[in-house]
């Protein structure tokens, strides 16, 4: 598993949608010029070791080992039903919330075994953004941002300042600053999703898990969220599940390809998309199935 060259942030991104669309028009396997970053072993923030996941008796994740380098974005791609969502939900132990579900194997956060810690504690260090935006409907925008802190009994010194900071981080501040008391549901889908991301950021996690965060959003909102991911990656380790390969190519430095509960290949994104080592990976990339 090569961890040598980490691909640089995907170019200097402009804000215009035209740029995004034209970039999308390029082949996902186009090579780009990248300056070299730090060589060899980048720090591993989170690591899954022979992780297995079960729903009842059915084994859905069949022994996956995967490192997640710090301050990088790792994308997980694969056809529907390959276990991407299940896998990512194991990383913050949301998987076991479903009745009858369990997991086995090892997942380390820095050097802590997540199965040895209290899930509540774990989820403060590892945040999650869901596929369908789920701001709490009975809370205001401000309330939503601070919800995680309130739940955990943390009283910030400057709640308004913190709300502003996170809303600025997700580029939502200008749009909502005059109506922080409005309900979270009064925003558009894309805005709601960014609100949910802000809510996660307010907890100051170390890792952010994203389960197909853009699949319920329109292309413009998607572009915004992808820019956000690009910004966030400087401070956080991000794992993103996506069924959109172009998205993986745009936002992630590393990509893992899952198939039927197994890890088929994991490498730098540009390698996966230009010279995949496995035939199945190539088949998927080129659209022969999935």
């Amino acid at each position, binding site marked *: 598993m090569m961890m040598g060259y980490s691909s640089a942030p995907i170019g200097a991104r402009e804000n215009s949608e035209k740029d995004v669309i034209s970039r999308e028009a390029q082949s996902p396997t186009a090579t780009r010029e990248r300056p070299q970053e730090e060589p060899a072993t980048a720090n591993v923030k989170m690591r899954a070791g022979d992780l297995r996941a079960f729903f009842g008796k059915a084994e859905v994740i069949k022994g996956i080992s995967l490192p997640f380098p710090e301050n990088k974005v790792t994308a997980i791609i694969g056809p529907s039903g390959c276990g991407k969502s299940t896998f990512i939900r194991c990383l913050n132990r949301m998987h076991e919330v479903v009745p009858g579900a369990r997991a086995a194997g090892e997942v380390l956060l820095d050097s802590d075994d997540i199965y040895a810690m*209290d899930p*509540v*504690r774990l989820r403060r260090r590892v945040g999650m953004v869901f596929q369908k935006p789920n701001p709490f409907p009975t809370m205001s925008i401000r309330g939503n941002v601070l919800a995680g802190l309130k739940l*955990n*009994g*943390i009283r910030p010194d400057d709640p308004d300042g913190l709300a502003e900071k996170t809303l600025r981080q997700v580029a939502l501040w200008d749009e909502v600053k005059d109506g922080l008391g409005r309900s979270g549901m009064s925003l558009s889908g894309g805005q709601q999703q960014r609100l949910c991301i802000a809510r996660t950021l307010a907890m100051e996690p170390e890792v952010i898990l994203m389960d197909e965060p853009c699949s319920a959003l329109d292309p413009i909102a998607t572009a915004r969220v992808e820019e956000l991911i690009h910004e966030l990656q400087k401070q956080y380790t991000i794992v993103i599940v996506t069924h959109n390969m172009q998205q993986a190519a745009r936002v992630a430095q590393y990509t893992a390809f899952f198939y039927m509960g197994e890890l088929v290949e994991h490498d730098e994104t540009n390698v996966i998309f230009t010279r995949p080592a496995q035939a199945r990976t190539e088949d998927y990339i080129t659209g022969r199935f999935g």
Partner: protein
Amino acid sequence: MNGIRSSYVYRRAVDRAVRAACVLAAIVALVPLFLVLYYVTVRGIGGLNWAFFTELPKPVGEAGGGAANAIVGSIQLVGLACLFGIPLGVLAGVFLAEFGQSFFGRMVRFAADVMAGVPSVTIGIFIYALVVLPTKQFSAYAGGLALAVIMLPTVTRTTEELLKLVPEALREAALGLGVPQWRTTLWVMLRTAAPGVATGIMLAVARVAGETAPLLFTSFNNRFWARGLNEPISSLPVQIYTYAVSPYEDWHRQAWAAALVLVSLVLFLNVAARVLVRNRVRSR
């Protein structure tokens, strides 16, 4: 840091406490159920003898006698209720399922919902004013009517909801074979929904068998056999009530026995309904 740790321990403790409280709530709610069943069984079983089932009540003050007329009376009253209530309820439910989107349909549905919430004692007054006053007597008919009105909303809504659950594909198959609309609805759709509707009816009967208040001023009571349905008639629930509030030890004993019979019937119907539902779901 310490502040966060201790608040964390506190939150965990609250979580555990709430879980325990919820379990406790379940236990607390079920204790009366078991107590009642226990008492009824223990106190009632002694009074269940041959005389209980076959004899008429003895005059006040005399020991012995039975509740034969109450048992038969209850059967007759429930039978009348079913006679009046089931056909009307089922067909009204069919109407609501098939043609119920109109304004009229919505009014009917609303009326059924309203009726479901009316206290049974009020229904007793209604039938008293409607039937007992004009005929100048208490009667089994009046009692049966009151019980039918109580049953009606349940049967109607159950039929409607279950009919709506039958897949449209069945209807289309029948229509495609040239079966007329009305036949399709009754013979195909209703028949498919029938087990569920039967279950709903069983539960409605169980409920109605135990109703007392409306009977107090419609079928009243009768220490002897009713000679016809036009006369006041005895019934188990009314008998239980009369005996329970009386000062006679012997009557108390019979009240428990009657309660045991009533509760057994009601329990049986409820359990049977549950079992039927589970079997249907499993066989699907």
